[in-house]
């Protein structure tokens, strides 16, 4: 079975370490905050100028001056700090964020990522994504492995305009957890019930498959 959005978030959350400063992109990455493992504390960085993002506010707590990068109303966690956009991206560009999680349309086995536009169809803009992928050492891309029509999004070479070049090392799809190194995808784990064959079929870029590919583990 392909992973649900919640399972994607849960699997990413397993990569968190105590004391990590983490930037979570819009969409599935945002859900990761709901699955921080017991005994671990992380601080969430929101690139519009907040380190230590808290949960959503109650109706009474809503403050138009306190939003996250997805423009949602939020609260501050204890020990939070506020700063301007230049400082925020100094943190990001300077490599001070321990983990960045973001979505993508395509990745390829050179570590390239495309996530901000589909020429002629869709232009969202890159927002902070180009800075995040260029600045972080530790990035996890969360995405669907293939389109609804079965076209792989893990390519030999991205077809869409790039968000970043040679910067992605870890990809979590709804089917598999993969590492990118030496110009190849390396299959690390498969989603529960998903066969290696299916993953191979839906991965267009060169894929290295070890003898044993463990299933992802989720707490029950």
């Amino acid at each position: 079975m392909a992973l649900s959005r919640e399972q994607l978030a849960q699997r990413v959350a397993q990569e968190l370490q105590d004391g990590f400063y983490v930037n979570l992109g819009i969409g599935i990455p945002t859900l990761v905050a709901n699955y921080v493992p017991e005994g671990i504390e992380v601080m969430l960085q929101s690139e519009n100028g907040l380190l230590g993002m808290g949960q959503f506010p109650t109706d009474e707590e809503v403050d138009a001056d306190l939003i996250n990068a997805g423009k949602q109303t939020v609260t501050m966690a204890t020990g939070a700090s506020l700063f301007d956009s230049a400082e925020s991206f100094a943190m990001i560009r300077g490599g001070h964020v321990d983990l960045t999680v973001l979505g993508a349309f395509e990745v390829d086995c050179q570590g390239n990522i495309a996530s901000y536009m589909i020429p002629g169809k869709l232009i969202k803009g890159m927002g902070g994504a180009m800075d995040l992928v260029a600045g972080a050492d530790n990035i996890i891309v969360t995405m669907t492995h293939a389109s609804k029509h079965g076209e792989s999004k893990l390519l030999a070479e991205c077809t869409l305009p790039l968000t970043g070049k040679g910067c992605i090392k870890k990809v979590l799809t709804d089917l598999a957890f993969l590492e990118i190194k030496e110009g190849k995808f390396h299959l690390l784990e498969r989603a529960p019930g998903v066969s290696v064959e299916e993953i191979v079929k839906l991965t267009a870029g060169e894929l290295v498959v070890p003898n044993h590919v463990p299933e992802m583990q989720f707490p029950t």
Partner: protein
Amino acid sequence: MSGFNKVVNSYEEAMSGLEDGMTLIAGGFGLCGIPENLIKEIKNKGTKNLTVVSNNCGTTNHGLGILLHDKQVKKMVASYVGENEEFERQMMSGELEVELTPQGTLAEKMRAAGAGIPAFFTATGYGTPVAEGKESREINGRHYILEESIKGDFAIVKAWKADTYGNLVFRKTARNFNPMAATAGKITVVEVEEIVQPGELDPDHIHTPGIYVDRVILGNFEKVIEQRTTRPSA
């Protein structure tokens, strides 16, 4: 009256000198921390052919988005188009020239302009469409591109409080691009929620010193929320 008193009493006076074809730098992130009434004044003035530099272009009906209706904007320099249909439509149709700029690069371009730094290297955008036409260079084994600073004829800024000397304090994430925008305008106009006397703001807590500020006006803010997201009360 002190030579440092920056307070003006009308929006007309606040935006006087803004002319067709000028470059306007605006603070704000989405609809958070935007100089709402300075933007409305620009709409009322009907100034045309503006180049607007701002992370977003508001939404279709709020913030900088209202300048798109009457085609007041010739060119937009921004990082994000999403959530503004009119912006996306004018961009796709070619009516509006758009220079998509990564968010951190945009913030740094404004800061650099204010700080007398004409250009800087950044890894952001290397190997992407953003790098087209720009110098790239390998430094200590990493690839970077050269980005130029971006200065405005006018900067419009939203702060929480100002003293009459133009010292500014921002509130929570409404700070965002505002401090950099304030430094990057030849003329910097700030709309605030409260004006206090010099000496009332703790000098250690001032985010933007008054040296960057030319005009201050007291405003009433609507503060539209784009994504009101709540959890149940306990």
